[in-house]
C-alpha cells in the first residue's frame, strides 16, 4: 500500500518529439486514477514511464517513499496489465501467473498459495492448467489480472485492458475491475481512451490532451465544470454542443450566431467588455420547449428506446446540434423545434484558447 507521486514529469523522445509537457499528480493510497484522452495524447507514455518501460526525461516519480526514476521495472514493485494481455503463449495460466514470483525466488509453497488465492478471487481455478490460446478473451483478461495480483504490488497499472473485449464483456469486466480494486485497496493507474470507462471507474480523472493534463479531478466535477473546451467535448456522450457566440459587456447576455439571445443566470464576470466566446451546452441539458429561444431544424432522429437523439442545425447558422431527450417524442426529420437550455448548465469558453470563462 502506498501512494504514487508524479512530479513535473516530462518526456522528450530522441527524435525530438515532446510527448509529455510536465505533469503533476499524486495518486493517494488505494485510489484509482484514470488517465483518459484521445490516442496520441501521451497517456500510455505516462503510464509506461511509471512502469519503467520508458525513461523519464525530466521530473520525478516516487512509488511509496522511493524515487524510482532509475529503477528497473521489476524493482519498482508494480504490476501491469497490458492491452493484449501479453500472456506467454507457451506457458499454462499457472506458469504465467507464477513466472514473476519464480524470478524473485519466492518459495514454491508461497507461489502455490498466492496463485491459488488469486485464482479463487478471479474464479479461474479450473483454468490454471490451460494454455492462454485455449481461453476466451474474458478469461485471458482474468489471467492477466491474476498475474498482476499475485505479485502483491504497491500499484497496479492498467494499459487499456478492456479494449480487446466485446462491448458486453467490457461492461462486465469494468465492474469487476472496480470491485477487485476496492477489495484489494491497491493504488491503481488506469489508462483508457473510452470516456464512459473513465467516468465509471475513476476515483479521480486526468484528462490529457497533447501531453498536457488539461484537468484533474473527480469525474462529476469534470463533467459539471470542464476547465477547457477540449475537456468539455471529450467527457460526456454524446459530445457537448459548441455554439459560437458573443458575450455582451458585463457578461449578462450572450448573442448566439443564430441571432438568438440568451440571458444568463450567472453572469460571466470576466467579460468586462463584449467579447467572442464559445457556448457549450450538453445534449442532455437541452429540452423541447415551445417558448424556447433556440430554433432547431431536425435532420436526423435516432430513437434508442429509453431516449432519443435529435441531430440538426441551429436556426440562422451552420452550427450542428445534438439533443438528447428522454423517451420517444413525436419528432420527424425536417421538423422545426424550439429548444430551451437549462440555464445554470451553460458553459462558456474563450474563443481563442478554449479556457473556461467564469
Amino acid at each position, binding site marked *: 500500500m502506498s501512494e504514487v507521486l508524479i512530479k513535473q514529469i516530462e518526456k522528450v523522445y530522441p527524435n525530438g518529439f515532446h510527448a509529455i509537457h510536465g505533469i503533476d499528480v499524486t495518486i493517494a493510497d488505494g485510489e484509482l486514477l484514470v488517465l483518459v484522452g484521445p490516442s496520441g495524447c501521451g497517456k500510455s507514455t505516462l503510464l509506461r514511464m511509471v512502469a519503467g518501460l520508458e525513461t523519464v526525461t525530466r521530473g520525478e516519480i516516487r512509488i511509496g517513499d522511493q524515487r524510482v526514476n532509475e529503477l528497473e521495472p521489476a524493482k519498482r514493485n508494480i504490476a501491469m496489465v497490458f492491452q493484449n494481455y501479453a500472456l506467454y503463449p*507457451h506457458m499454462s495460466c499457472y506458469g504465467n501467473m507464477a513466472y514473476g514470483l519464480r524470478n524473485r525466488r519466492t518459495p514454491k509453497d508461497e507461489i502455490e498459495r498466492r496463485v491459488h488465492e488469486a485464482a479463487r478471487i478471479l474464479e479461474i481455478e479450473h483454468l490454471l492448467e490451460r494454455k492462454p490460446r485455449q481461453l476466451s478473451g474474458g478469461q485471458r483478461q482474468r489471467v492477466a489480472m491474476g498475474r498482476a495480483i499475485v505479485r502483491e504490488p504497491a500499484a497496479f497499472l492498467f494499459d487499456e485492458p478492456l479494449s480487446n473485449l466485446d462491448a458486453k464483456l467490457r461492461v462486465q469486466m469494468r465492474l469487476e475491475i472496480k470491485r477487485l480494486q476496492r477489495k484489494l485497496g491497491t493504488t491503481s493507474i488506469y489508462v483508457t481512451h473510452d470516456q464512459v470507462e473513465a467516468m465509471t471507474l475513476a476515483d479521480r480523472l486526468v484528462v490529457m490532451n497533447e501531453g498536457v493534463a488539461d484537468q484533474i479531478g473527480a469525474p462529476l466535477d469534470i463533467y459539471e465544470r470542464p476547465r477547457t473546451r477540449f475537456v468539455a467535448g471529450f467527457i460526456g456522450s454524446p459530445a457537448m454542443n459548441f455554439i459560437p457566440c458573443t458575450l455582451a459587456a458585463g457578461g449578462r447576455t450572450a448573442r448566439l450566431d443564430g441571432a438568438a439571445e440568451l440571458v444568463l443566470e450567472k453572469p460571466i464576470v470576466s467579460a468586462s467588455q463584449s467579447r467572442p466566446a464559445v457556448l457549450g451546452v450538453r445534449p442532455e441539458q437541452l429540452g423541447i420547449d415551445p417558448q424556447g429561444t433556440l430554433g432547431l431544424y431536425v435532420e436526423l432522429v435516432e430513437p434508442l428506446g429509453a431516449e432519443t437523439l435529435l441531430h440538426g442545425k441551429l436556426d440562422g447558422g451552420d452550427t450542428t446540434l445534438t439533443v438528447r431527450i428522454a423517451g420517444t417524442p413525436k419528432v420527424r426529420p425536417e421538423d422545426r423545434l424550439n429548444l430551451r437550455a437549462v440555464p445554470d448548465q451553460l458553459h462558456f469558453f474563450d474563443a481563442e484558447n478554449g479556457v473556461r470563462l467564469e
Partner: protein
Amino acid sequence: MVENRSWLTVVSHVVLILGVLAMMLPVWIAFVASTHAAEDLMSSRVPLWIGDQFLQNYSAALSSGVKGASSAPLAHMMLNSLIMALSIAIGKIFISILSAYAIVYFRFPLRMTCFWIIFVTLMLPVEVRILPTFQVVANMGLLNSYVGLSLPLIASATATFLFRQFFLTVPDEYLEAARIDGAGPWQFFKDILLPLSRTNIAALFVILFIYGWNQYLWPLLVTTDEHYYTIVMAIQRMVAVPDSEPLWHMIMATAILAMLPPVIVVVSMQKLFVKGLTETEK
C-alpha cells in the same frame, strides 16, 4: 476458391502421380540395383525388380567398404557425415539465434552495421570464398578434423536473418511483461523467446541438416585422410575408380544409405517443420 469438379480432381491427381513417379523411379532403380550382384548390372537390361543380394551388399558396404575406392566402411563414413551435419546444423542455429537476439533486442553502437555485414555474407557462399577459407583452415591446422569439416560452414546469414524476422514479429509486450516479471535478458531469451522459436528452430534444423549432410566440395578439399571421409564424397570416389568397372551395386547401396538420414530427419520432424514455415499466430 474451392472448386469441386470431378474431371479437375482426376487431372490433378494424374499430374501428381506422374510427378511422384518421375521422382521415385530413379530412387527405385537405385534401390533395385543395390540388391543385385555386380554381374547382373553389367548386362544390357536394367533389372526392375528387387534381387536377392540385399543383405550381402548392404552388410558388405557397411562393414568393410568398397574395394578400389576407399577401404573405409560406409558405417564409419556415415558417422562422419552425421557428425558434420549435426555440428553444422546445431552450430548454425546456436550462433544465429544468439546474433539475431543481439541485433533485435539490444541497442549497441554499430548495430545496423553488424546486421548488414552479416547480411552481405549471404552473397558469399562457400564456393566463392573456398580458397581463402581453405587457407585459413589449413593455417590453423584444422585439415583432416571434424572441426575443419564443420566450423567454416557454421556462420550463417540466412538463419540469422530468419530468426531476426521472427523476433521482429514477437510482440514487444512479451519483453515488457517479462521485464516487469523480473526476467533479465538471459532469462527472457531462455524462458520466453526460445520456446516461442521452437517451430522455427525445427524447420531450420531440417534444412540445415540436409545442407550439412549434402556438403560435397568442402569435405573433398579439407580431408585427405580417409578416416574423415563423408559418405557423399564416397559415392563420387566409387564411380571414379581407375582401371576397373565401377561396382554399381555397391554405389547404389551407398547412394541409398546416403539418402536415408535426411529422409528420416524430414519425416520425423515433418509436423514441426511445416508449422515452423507456415505458422503466423503467436
